[in-house]
């Protein structure tokens, strides 16, 4: 590196000084921050997997929920698995189409209109509304009149998902190149037709992966379900009427139980829930990866 001439070359590098030490300290602190985050994450995942894996079986996923006093070997979380699947599916059916339509309004029709700006801003603000407030809202507006049901839970989850779907879809629609739209208009297509047959299919991958992340988030929510489905221990296949249950509500109930069997079933349910969320996240990543390759 050093160019050797006849005489001794002057070392132009600064001597190790306080400035360099400060720089090194800062870098070390940044890495420490990351390690600080990995430790609890690893700890939680390890605990859930270690305690959950021993109890999870096909029987656990389908058997009915026994009284808390019974040991872990008896019963399972069947009704909660059924409840989570049906309530989350219904919430998806309610929120995703509306969210996509809302984003279509914001990006395709809204333009620079004041109304579109207000809706976009308030939709971002709505992502910050606490989930428990959504539960109280659906309790006040629906449960007091029509009683507890899976549908009420789905409405609460749908309210949580709606702004997330709007935001992610909007970001995807913005990426669709304008020449695609213009080419379609030039062929005489109406705006609705251009949106449905050109814009949405182009952004489909991104929209799907955004929706999957919203579903993953909703599937793990407990607070909106507490006052809308009223945690029960029997299976309820009718999502539209009668009290229901879900994995998160059941974990919440079991976490404060002193019985070892109930706690073990809680860990099993937690592992099931994390697995569902994780699978949704992986699918979303795969869809995104495929989609971005497609665009290139």
């Amino acid at each position, binding site marked *: 590196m050093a160019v050797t001439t006849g005489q001794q070359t002057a070392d132009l590098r600064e001597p190790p000084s306080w400035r360099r030490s400060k720089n090194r300290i800062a870098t070390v602190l940044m890495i420490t921050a990351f390690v600080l985050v990995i430790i609890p994450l690893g700890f939680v995942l390890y605990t859930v997997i270690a305690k959950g894996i021993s109890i999870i079986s096909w029987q656990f996923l389908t058997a009915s929920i026994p009284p808390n006093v019974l040991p872990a070997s008896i019963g399972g979380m069947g009704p909660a698995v059924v409840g989570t699947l049906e309530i989350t599916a219904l919430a998806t059916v309610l929120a995703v189409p509306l969210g996509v339509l809302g984003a279509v309004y914001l990006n395709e029709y809204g333009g620079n209109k004041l109304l579109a700006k207000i809706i976009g801003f308030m939709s971002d603000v709505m992502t910050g509304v606490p989930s428990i407030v959504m539960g109280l809202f659906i309790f*006040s507006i629906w449960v007091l009149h029509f009683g507890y049901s899976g549908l009420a839970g789905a409405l609460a989850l749908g309210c949580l998902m709606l702004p997330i779907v709007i935001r992610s879809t909007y970001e995807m629609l913005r990426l669709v190149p304008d020449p695609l739209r213009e080419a379609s208009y030039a062929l005489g297509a109406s705006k609705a037709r251009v949106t449905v047959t050109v814009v949405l299919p182009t952004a489909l991958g991104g929209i799907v992966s955004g929706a999957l992340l919203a579903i993953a988030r909703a599937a793990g929510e407990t607070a909106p379900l507490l006052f809308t489905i009223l945690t029960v221990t029997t299976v309820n296949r009718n999502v539209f009427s009668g009290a229901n249950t879900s994995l998160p509500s059941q974990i919440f109930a079991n976490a404060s139980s002193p019985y070892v069997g109930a706690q073990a079933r809680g860990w099993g349910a937690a592992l099931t829930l994390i697995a569902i969320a994780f699978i949704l996240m992986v699918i979303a990543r795969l869809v995104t990866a495929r989609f971005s390759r497609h665009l290139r």
Partner: protein
Amino acid sequence: MSAVTKADPAGPAGSARPLSERRPLGDISFQALALAAGLLVLVILVLIAISTSQQASSWFSTEGVKIFSSTWNPSANQFGALPFIYGTAVTAIIALVIAVPVSVAIALLLTEVVPYRWSRPIVYVIDLLAVIPSVVWGLWGILVFAPWIQHIYASVSSGVNGIPVLDSLFGGPTSGASFFTAGIILAFMITPIVTSLSREVIATVPAIDKEGAYALGATRWEMIRGAVWPHSQAGVVGAVLLGLGRAMGETIAVALVIGSSATITSHLLAPGYNMPAVIANEFGEASGLFRAALIGMGVLLFAFTIIINVIARAVVERSGRRKRGA
């Protein structure tokens, strides 16, 4: 426009349809549908405010200003929300004090230190934190974390005994389920959002500013202090406010680990309570004025978080616009 609309009868067949023909019904109804879906957001927000306030009105009218009193005694029909407002503020502040330096440091690590191919996996790991549901944090918090940290609390408490400020903060009675445990769990939960928003803001710092700093002989840390920080300060403040909103509204994990004791105390290692937790824990048994009081606390929570989120979004948007303009 109108000049073009005159269809030329001699033109090729099929192209004779005038351009300004009335829009087909399908087109108009699709636009109406999209508009309705957009308006739904505003409708829901207004309905939340109206319907919950209605259910809580008996609390607001019977207690009046006393809704902010510090006595919470449901059996004597006294419903003062101050202990819960205090608890919400304390847990959220603890969470921010822990999460903000960590999140900003990780954001800087991702944008300024590690090469791109390493930053992707790090982002995945941070996002994993957000995938863990609140109730799983709570389950882990109460069954694993609280029993473990309770011994540390006990020795800290006896260690600070007699030291002026520290004693009133960390002394006194301790419990595994406490304000501080809730704050730590909240910190884990808000780290992903504060990190990703700070990272977005920091990524907008123009490369030319950074190169300029390096050209003047700055070390990386001096470059961050001199070029990155002034540029991203406002956006990071917005990210922190959004984290604050999250921390205030997060319910289930806190409900399990906060200790469920409606007291106002400076002892952070003692059990406490906050607004979302008391709603989640007590709602099942509540009726009448009790239920109205709990829903009323939901209204307060809604109001606080909306105000914080509006400010945060405005700050983020303004800093974003200024950057794009520059």
